[in-house]
């Protein structure tokens, strides 16, 4: 698969899974500025025809939205509160699973790792200048940013 096709897959799959799993509607950002401010990062490794990882960097406020939408409750609901990290990891898990099928096909077995989630305070990241990294940035309807990186090792 060519890089343009992988970029298209990354864009379409991420947007679709955010919508299907978390009811979050997004638009790809046309110009990518460095990600600034308080953010969270979730990453998951994969092993298949190629090795790599998928990384999600997102506005910290989205974690509680993921949790609430998974459960079908309001973000300030007690059941959702405190489950933001877990929900973010699962959101990435869902994106990565669908992405692996789209990139490698439905016949190929790809092993996914366990998601790791962390807070990133005062993050100021430049675009990863790595020719094996493909990335896309989204903005939600609530002006929250989500970046997704596909990195081949």
């Amino acid at each position: 698969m060519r890089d343009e096709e992988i970029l298209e897959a990354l864009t379409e799959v991420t947007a679709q899974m955010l919508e299907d799993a978390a009811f979050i509607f997004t638009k790809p950002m046309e110009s990518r500025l460095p990600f600034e401010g308080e953010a969270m990062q979730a990453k998951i490794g994969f092993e298949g025809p190629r090795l790599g990882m998928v990384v999600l960097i997102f506005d910290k406020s989205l974690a509680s939205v993921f949790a609430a939408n998974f459960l079908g409750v309001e973000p300030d609901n007690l059941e959702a509160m405190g489950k933001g990290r877990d929900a973010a990891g699962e959101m990435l898990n869902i994106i990565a699973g669908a992405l692996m099928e789209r990139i490698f096909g439905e016949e190929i077995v790809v092993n996914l790792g366990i998601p790791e989630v962390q807070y990133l305070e005062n993050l100021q990241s430049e675009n990863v200048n790595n020719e094996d990294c493909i990335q896309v940035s989204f903005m939600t309807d609530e002006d929250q940013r989500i970046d997704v990186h596909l990195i081949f090792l």
Partner: protein
Amino acid sequence: MGYNILIVDDSSIIRAAVKKAIEMSGLDVAAFHEAANGKHALEALDQQWVDIVLTDINMPEMSGVELIERMAADDLLNKIPVVIVSTERSRTRIENLMAMGVRAYIKKPFRPEDFRDVIGGILAGS
């Protein structure tokens, strides 16, 4: 009379979401039991009978695949139907799991009707 369902996933939010989806599906459930990995699932199965096990694949300590293998090797536990609930979508993996005795596979993200159709069908036939 409702069903006893064991939900196995290392994510507490997925366990809660599965529970909610099953409740919304209209299935008659007597009790939900939860486990964070295969090892805890086996401990739970040692304590109480369940009518069906829903399990993820990738979990720390003991994976869903190992859980299925252990259940298949046990004369009592191999009677309990197992359904995989996972993000992994490889047809090869699904076929391998079915060959191990898994009854069905529900992909994440899931909808209440996925559980109604799959679990309802399995339990009605048992």
